[in-house]
């Protein structure tokens, strides 16, 4: 007889985990974010970033963008479970590598240090069309809009140059071309 294994704690077939960007259109009502987030934490899905804001004042619609990681089965469950929530209107799921989708994240970075280092840091930011929002002799605050992984990289390289504060919005997404996502 084969050695018995656990039916619950040892799923043998691990699918490959992939990054997905889930976009959820919801009624902007009290507690709606808690419903969405609670579903993720309650069912053990992970959230890498989260961006949310009202997009239609009249219809009280908000758009939530969540970056998550999971096997295809988990991503499918996330979509279906979100779809069951009452205030959810539609759910879109984009793979991070989808060429038809634009992904952007905005970061504010504060660098403090000597002029030499500051100049070097500014140069590094140039590649991403960094916009300097505030400047003193010892510091600057720059706004960078880029892909998540580009910002990750930038942050890592700026660390030794005096980066002391990072604020990021989390990714937002939009389809390219004249199409809009409908369900």
């Amino acid at each position: 007889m084969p050695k018995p294994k656990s039916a619950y704690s040892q799923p043998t077939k691990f699918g490959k985990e992939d990054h997905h960007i889930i976009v959820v259109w919801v009624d902007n009502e009290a507690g709606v974010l808690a419903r969405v987030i609670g579903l993720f934490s309650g069912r053990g899905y992970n959230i890498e970033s989260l961006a949310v804001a009202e997009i239609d004042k009249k219809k009280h619609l908000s758009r939530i963008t969540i970056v998550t990681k999971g096997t295809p089965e988990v991503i499918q469950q996330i979509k279906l479970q979100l779809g069951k929530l009452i205030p959810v209107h539609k759910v879109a799921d984009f793979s991070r590598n989808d060429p038809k989708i634009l992904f952007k994240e905005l970061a504010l970075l504060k660098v403090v240090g000597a002029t030499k280092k500051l100049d070097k840091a500014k140069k590094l930011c140039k590649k991403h069309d960094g916009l300097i929002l505030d400047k003193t002799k010892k510091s600057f605050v720059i706004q960078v809009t880029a892909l998540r992984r580009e910002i990750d990289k930038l942050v890592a390289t700026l660390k030794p140059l005096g980066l002391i504060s990072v604020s990021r919005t989390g990714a937002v997404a939009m389809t390219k071309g004249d199409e809009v996502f409908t369900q």
Partner: protein
Amino acid sequence: MPKLLSGAEIVFKALEDQKVEYIFGYPGGAVLPIYDELKNHKSIKHILARHEQGAGHAAEGYARSSGKPGVLLVTSGPGATNAVTALTDAYMDSIPVVCISGQVPTHLIGTDAFQECDTTGITRPCTKHNWLVKDVNDLADIMSQAFKIATTGRPGPVLVDIPKDIQFNKGIYKVSKNKLEKKLNGALSNKINLKDVDKFIEMIKKSSKPIFYTGGGVINSGPKASELLRDLVSLTGFPITSTLQGLGAFPGDDPQFLGMLGMHGTYEANNAMHDCDLMINIGARFDDRITGKIDEFSPKSKKIHIDIDPSSIGKNVKVDLAITSDVTELLQAVIKRFKEKNKNFIESNKQKTAKWWSQIDKWREKKSLNFINSKETIKPQHAVQRLYELTKHQDTFITTEVGQHQMWAAQHYKFNKPNRWMTSGGLGTMGYGLPAAIGVQIAHPKKLVIDIAGEASILMNIQEMSTAIQYRLPVKIFILNNEYMGMVRQWQELLHDKNYSESYTEALPDFVKLAEAYGAVGIRAKTPGELDEKIKEMINTDKPVIFDCVVDKVENCYPMIPSGKPHNQMLLGPEDEKEEVSDEGKTLV
């Protein structure tokens, strides 16, 4: 100008519009305006429980046996938190329950006021949806949506939290057109695709080792679904097995029925599930108590899955044909199409499935539900069998608590009709059976309602005896008393080296005297010889009865799929126990 109503009046108007006859509840400070209004609404009767959990399970029992939503009314703070177990139970077993809770006045929310708690926060993960009412003019709409959401799609509990000031405030009763019509648990459309129906039939025709695996979805779809299921099963001549929740959808004594499947299912049902080439899942959800070891679950079969909830499909098991639909609608479409095209299917198919049936008969010969009976002590299985034999001629409703007695009831009591079997399957709530029986008896005043119980479970909501007495509800509590938390003891025996840690109950009450203390009738049976007479006495007593059936203390519930094993490696009885359970198996429930 339309007439202005107070929030409390709006609540009752909504309940009247929904044709609610009974509400189960318990009053308290934050819900008093609603209780005050009760006297003005004669068509609605309030059943006073003795604990909010009891009220919740009673509402569930009412809903499951009648097909109508159960309504629950509780106060803020502890009233709401006590109801959480019942709401979670209803959520897991897809039972429509509308819970109305009082809340501290709006201006006190967030101040840690007396009996304040974040009710919508606490109940968010255990309801389909919930609302904190902030404006009395929203209340009519919210109440209407609450009933809609609880009863449509995959049914479930909802909660409406109403602050006390909103209950007093005046507003308009106006229900706007429901914007939720389109929603069916997130499914885009519930239209049945004819292509799917044809594929369904094609798969039926191709298979030579088929099996129907049906669940609570058939019951939830209404009595018509059970009729249609019977039609389809007899049209195809295929074997059928059922989950715990699905019992009664198909007659338990029909030769095509293989009995319940799963952890304590029959040998023939589990082996047929394992070896089949076509599995037709109708309204079940591949729960872990059903599948056993998931990687070795029915390895050779094509699988069809019909579920009203799209998120149930593909969650645990990949399927070949998935149909998101209500069971009744789908079965209607399938049967119609099937009859058009396959007039003589049974005849032509008999040969194809003959081998399969003879294999099933071989499995049946194992008689996996058999047990060694005794003349000295009452075996619990024997007690359930006698209870069945003595009650089967009348329309009997059975509820259970949770544990060994629940499994013995599922194995040995044969159900022939839907909505006759109320048990806590998903959450496994000890203390469910008595309050549920009360709810059932409210819905069916003239019928025989029996709670098959264990002596440990029954003590978890024993206070509801008082409710049964107050409303003259002649529920029968049939306790299989072995002085142990039997299922815990069984797992400890099999998995924890017989270390019976805290599973023996010292100082149990004298259940006969306890019954008398409540004003009910107590009966005790100690030997097999007196069992039948005592059961008859119980049935003929037109009052609540606590029946203390003193049974074998160490009997285990078999057959059993040990944790971590697939369907075809069942333990049939004590002689199989010797095999060691792996360490991994021990970590399981």
